[in-house]
């Protein structure tokens, strides 16, 4: 199971992605506990603020989009941990997605 953090926006508009294979971590139990503690269902993004980062955090069927200012508590702990565990990959252009129309 992978946990994926995509940071976009910011003044520079750069896209940075971190991906951790949780099962392969020596402290997989701690990761599990942290992922379980996240308030996935109640996370709603607030009105965007100019040039602040936007975080999209996903794991299995869960996904949350949070502004930089909302990244507090367990969300902050998770992102810090992810960023300390793996090197990011940067891709300046977001992946193409099928048109919704």
């Amino acid at each position, binding site marked *: 199971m992978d946990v994926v953090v995509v940071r976009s926006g910011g*003044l*520079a508009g750069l896209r940075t992605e971190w991906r951790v294979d949780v099962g392969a971590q020596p402290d997989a139990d701690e990761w599990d506990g942290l992922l379980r503690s996240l308030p996935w269902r109640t996370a709603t993004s607030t009105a*965007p603020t100019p040039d602040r980062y936007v975080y*999209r955090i996903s794991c299995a069927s869960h996904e949350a989009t949070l502004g930089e200012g909302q990244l507090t508590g367990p969300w902050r702990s998770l992102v810090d941990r992810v960023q300390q565990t793996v090197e990011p990959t940067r891709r300046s*252009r977001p992946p193409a997605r099928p048109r919704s129309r």
Partner: protein
Amino acid sequence: MPYAIVPPYLLRRVAAAGDHYPTAAAAARRSLRAGAPSEPAPVRPFDPSQSYALPDSPSQPDRRISDAGGTTRLPGRLVRREGERATGDEAVDDAYDGLGDTHRLFDQVYGRDSIDGRGMPLEASVHYGRDYDNAFWDGARMVFGDGDGEVFAGFANSLTVIGHELSHGVVEHTARLRYEYQSGALNEHVADVFGSLVEQYARGQSAETASWLVGAEVFTDAVEGRALRSMLEPGTAYDDDVLGRDPQPAHFDDFIDTDEDNGGVHLNSGIPNRAFALAARAAGGFAWEGVGRVWYDVLVSGELAENAKFAAFADLTIAAAVRRYGVGSAIAAAVRSGWETVGVPVAAAEPAR
């Protein structure tokens, strides 16, 4: 405000009487620059060699620079107030000077006193966070990170970045463009336009000699890139092993459909950016006059919807150019041609009389 009531001819007379009534004269000159809303805008041929800005500045900035000390707590410790001497901390002093340059453009060219037009203090915090690769406007102040030292060298040393952040404040107090999808890209675009114009005005550069780069100072020497963005040639600002290639589209056909970055606001702004830079270069002269004035007119017109899309914005700029400079004017033609070149659909031209 007095300029809504006092007839322009009287303002001109008071403005000319500077020796006898310096305060009133300064206020009248400012009102003339702001333009009386009840008076139809003059139709006159555009002369690139003529600056319509008046030389003195009746309003003063009220700057307050704080030091967040490497934390994310805002505002941090107040370290330099208006009129105080340089601190020796480069980020503090660069932010102070940059806010002064930004205030000067809005005040002297557009007759706007600060972000809200009513002398609001200009507040900035520097040294935000650790290795923080960003700068932003939080609704009350500009916030600048120091960068990580590997890719980003800092942000307060870039005048276009300071002008960009402060312009977000101006948008918030005028058109309030919603910060997502096309209206968000327009918000970004307007911030790039006035950020770039702050630098051009401070350096006395014409549209021809301007770099049209935003954030030319933010990268370290290790990065293969000129700047964060190129308004004239979106998509060419950097091409680097670590950062990848500048993703900005330069044409409406290449509009990026994404939910990331609040709907690609920092990506798709390349399209209107290029339209503006091309229009300014076609018009010639100083971009803060002419085309810059047209963009400012649209921003404060009350006609721009908060959720405006590119096409609606483009039509408003053409209408504003016609209103200020005339149907057959070089400025109106340059604005129309800028939008056509980047593929944004605009309403058919009115026949010139």
